[in-house]
């Protein structure tokens, strides 16, 4: 079985080749989708082979490296490292990506640019797989940045769309916003990696000597101080975590993710729900030994809990079907980050995997709904507004069934996947974290059940409010992935049940002890959320113009939450002010220093130029002319001696001979 480990480098290469082929070959639309799906499906088979091969081995990581470039004392290596964590992620990413690409064949069937779409998504998949397999943090960072680029390209995929409402963000603006926001985190991450390089002299992942988790190195990092008082390990961990905050959309850099929903829905499912946003969680899990010896974990836990609760609150009042899911994603990522912060990276990984399944399912289900709604209300109509939906369970039974499974899994209803993973996180939080974080996460999980019930009820139950004719069920390429993912959402919890810690053992994480009381409370809260949502919304919407019951009860709080705590407005205001001040300073600098400098330099250059001109004109130019004219005149004189008559030449030769003779006879004699 070592065969699969030896050819594991094919896993990211296949999607990359598909991307190259899609970019360079003149493929038609239908072929593009099939090519992308087959490349990723083969990668998925290889990934399954890898995980089986690894499980059959002795549990040590499999590493293959080639020498890349000399760098200082040690060579920079390029290679892949497959341990339990990487293998599990490989399987998850390839399987989810396969389902989503199959779905995209149907969803993008009428888009003129779908070849480009598949080129981008395959490039993204290749980068994600490369990041998961990367044997050192530099390669990981490269893949990380390529993912950022793909995210940008795909959010802005419909870059020519504009909306009548000036307050609604266009795909173009959303892409720029996402890129700029994640850039903040990425730059800090890069600084962190450079810092780690300076301290450790290596970026190789592993616990052996000369690798970043070598015990003596970690001890040195934990004890050596920095200028600001914290230990080097804390500084590095916080800088790496800044990358996570950007990529995994944690507070305060979460603002890009809801707007990223302007991209095509399969992209939202693939990149902005299931895989790329999980990269941040993966990064922390990857570098967890550094976090473990640092003081950064409480910060991580606090950020995660704040994000989980805040985003869940915001998700309760959104009307856009994808935005609800986007805030839900932010919230669930907050759960994972909080789990990392209390030391339960195994629980975080477990939730990452289950969440990837059911969130991909929910997004694809939302895509199916939007696809059907667009056929009824048009591209510019309220195709994503849950107030205009309703009653779709009869019109779209397969989508409804799958969506319901996803929603229940997300809400944490036993025995679906979300229940097990969320329960592990809560158990970790109460066992190792502080009580406040546990309570915040409990509240967030109650709100999760509430907003999912609200969404499912408004979309699928009641009466259709979007028009006279009902939408139709989506084609099989779209519903089959939904059903597959629904089955996965039911079953994937089984990989890490409280009694058989298969996943924890496989990735060598500390297993979480089951807390029966907590599981009971969490289930009660989930059921309370579902019941509350049902009670509040069971007959709230008579038509699309009805006011939300929450808005009637708390109009000001509702408005605040609708603007997501006005963080966007705050950033706009602060950064706008900052720009004003900086541009004013730059203006003064320009006018007073640079402007005058430039003007002075200009007049000096003018003066020098005039001097040079005088010299040039008189000496160089005149001198050159003089040489030319003299040569010409001399030639004019001399040409007269060349008569062309042979007797003149003879006469001259004789005259010369006579002169020569006189010189020889009289001149050379003493």
């Amino acid at each position, binding site marked *: 079985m070592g065969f699969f480990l030896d050819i594991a480098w094919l896993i990211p290469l296949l999607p990359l080749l598909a991307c190259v082929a899609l970019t360079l070959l003149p493929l038609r639309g239908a072929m593009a989708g099939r090519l992308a799906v087959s490349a990723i499906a083969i990668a998925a088979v290889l990934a399954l082979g890898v995980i089986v091969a690894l499980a059959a081995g002795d549990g040590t990581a499999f590493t293959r490296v080639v020498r890349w470039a000399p760098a200082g004392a040690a060579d920079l290596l390029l290679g892949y490292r497959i341990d339990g964590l990487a293998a599990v992620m490989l399987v998850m990413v390839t399987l989810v990506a396969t389902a989503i690409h199959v779905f995209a064949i149907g969803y993008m069937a009428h888009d003129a640019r779908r070849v480009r779409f598949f080129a981008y998504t395959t490039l993204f998949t290749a980068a994600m797989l490369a990041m998961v397999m990367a044997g050192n943090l530099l390669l990981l960072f490269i893949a990380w940045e390529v993912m950022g680029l793909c995210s940008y390209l795909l959010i802005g995929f419909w870059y020519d769309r504009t909306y009548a409402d000036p307050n609604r963000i266009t795909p173009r603006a959303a892409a720029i916003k996402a890129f700029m926001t994640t850039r903040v985190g990425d730059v800090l991450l890069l600084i962190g990696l450079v810092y780690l390089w300076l301290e450790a002299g290596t970026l190789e992942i592993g616990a052996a000597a000369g690798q970043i988790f070598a015990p003596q190195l970690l001890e040195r990092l934990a004890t050596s101080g920095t200028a600001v008082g914290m230990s080097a390990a804390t500084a590095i961990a916080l800088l790496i975590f800044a990358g996570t905050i950007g990529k995994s959309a944690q507070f305060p850099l979460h603002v890009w993710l809801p707007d990223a929903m302007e991209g095509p829905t399969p992209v939202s499912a693939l990149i902005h729900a299931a895989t790329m946003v999980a990269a941040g969680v993966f990064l922390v899990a990857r570098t967890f030994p550094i976090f473990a010896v640092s003081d950064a974990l409480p910060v991580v836990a606090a950020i995660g809990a704040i994000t989980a609760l805040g985003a869940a609150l915001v998700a309760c009042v959104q009307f856009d079907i994808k935005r609800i899911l986007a805030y839900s994603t932010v919230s669930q990522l907050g759960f994972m980050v909080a789990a990392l912060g209390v030391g339960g990276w195994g629980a975080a990984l477990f939730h990452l995997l289950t969440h990837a399944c059911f969130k991909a399912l929910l997004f694809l289900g939302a895509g199916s709904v939007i696809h059907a709604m667009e056929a009824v209300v048009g591209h510019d109509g309220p195709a994503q507004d849950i107030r205009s939906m309703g009653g779709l369970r009869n019109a779209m039974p397969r989508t409804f069934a799958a969506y319901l499974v996803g929603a229940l899994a997300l809400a944490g209803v036993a025995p679906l996947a979300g229940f097990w993973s969320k329960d592990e996180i809560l158990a970790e939080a109460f066992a190792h974290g502080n009580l406040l974080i546990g309570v915040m996460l409990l509240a967030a999980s109650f709100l999760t059940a509430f907003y999912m019930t609200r969404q499912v009820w408004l979309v699928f139950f009641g009466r259709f409010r979007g028009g006279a004719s009902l939408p139709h069920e989506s084609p099989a390429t779209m519903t089959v992935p939904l059903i597959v993912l629904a089955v996965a959402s039911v079953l994937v919890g089984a990989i890490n049940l409280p009694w058989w810690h298969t996943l924890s053992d496989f990735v060598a994480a500390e297993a979480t002890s089951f807390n029966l009381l907590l599981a009971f409370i969490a289930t009660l809260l989930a059921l309370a959320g579902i019941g509350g949502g049902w009670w509040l919304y069971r007959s709230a919407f008579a038509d699309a113009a009805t006011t939300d019951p929450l808005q009637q009860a708390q109009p000001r709080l509702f408005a605040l939450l609708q603007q997501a705590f006005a963080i966007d407005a705050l950033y706009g205001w602060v950064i706008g002010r900052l720009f004003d001040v900086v541009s004013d300073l730059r203006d003064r600098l320009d006018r007073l220093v640079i402007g005058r400098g430039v003007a002075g330099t200009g007049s000096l250059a003018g003066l020098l130029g005039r001097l040079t001109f005088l010299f040039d004109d008189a000496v160089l130019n005149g001198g050159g002319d003089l040489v030319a004219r003299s040569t010409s005149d001399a030639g004019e004189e001399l040409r007269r001696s*060349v008569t062309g*008559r*042979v*007797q003149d030449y*003879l006469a001259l030769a004789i005259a010369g001979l006579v002169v020569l003779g006189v010189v020889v006879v009289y001149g050379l004699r003493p």
Partner: protein
Amino acid sequence: MTMVDSVPLEWLLLLAAALFCIGLFGALVRRSLIGILLGVELMLNAVNINMVAFWRYLEPNLVAGQVFALFIITIAAAEAAVGLAMVIAIYRSRRTIDADDAALLQG
């Protein structure tokens, strides 16, 4: 009474010089290319007289003077052949053998 006793060397040298000058004058002033060639022949033969005279009067035991004279005669014959061929070629292309008309190289 031999020639050496009755005719001094200077006479022969004066004859040769006169002949050379006549040849040179002819070569420089004749218009006809044939005339120029004749002048050149005269100059060559003046040199021959010199050669033979010096041999006869000064070094009668060495054959070098005679050999030189014979060489010059041979070369003069070759020169006359080449020169006349060129004159004919010029005549064919220009219908004249006037040296002043063959002045293509004039600057």
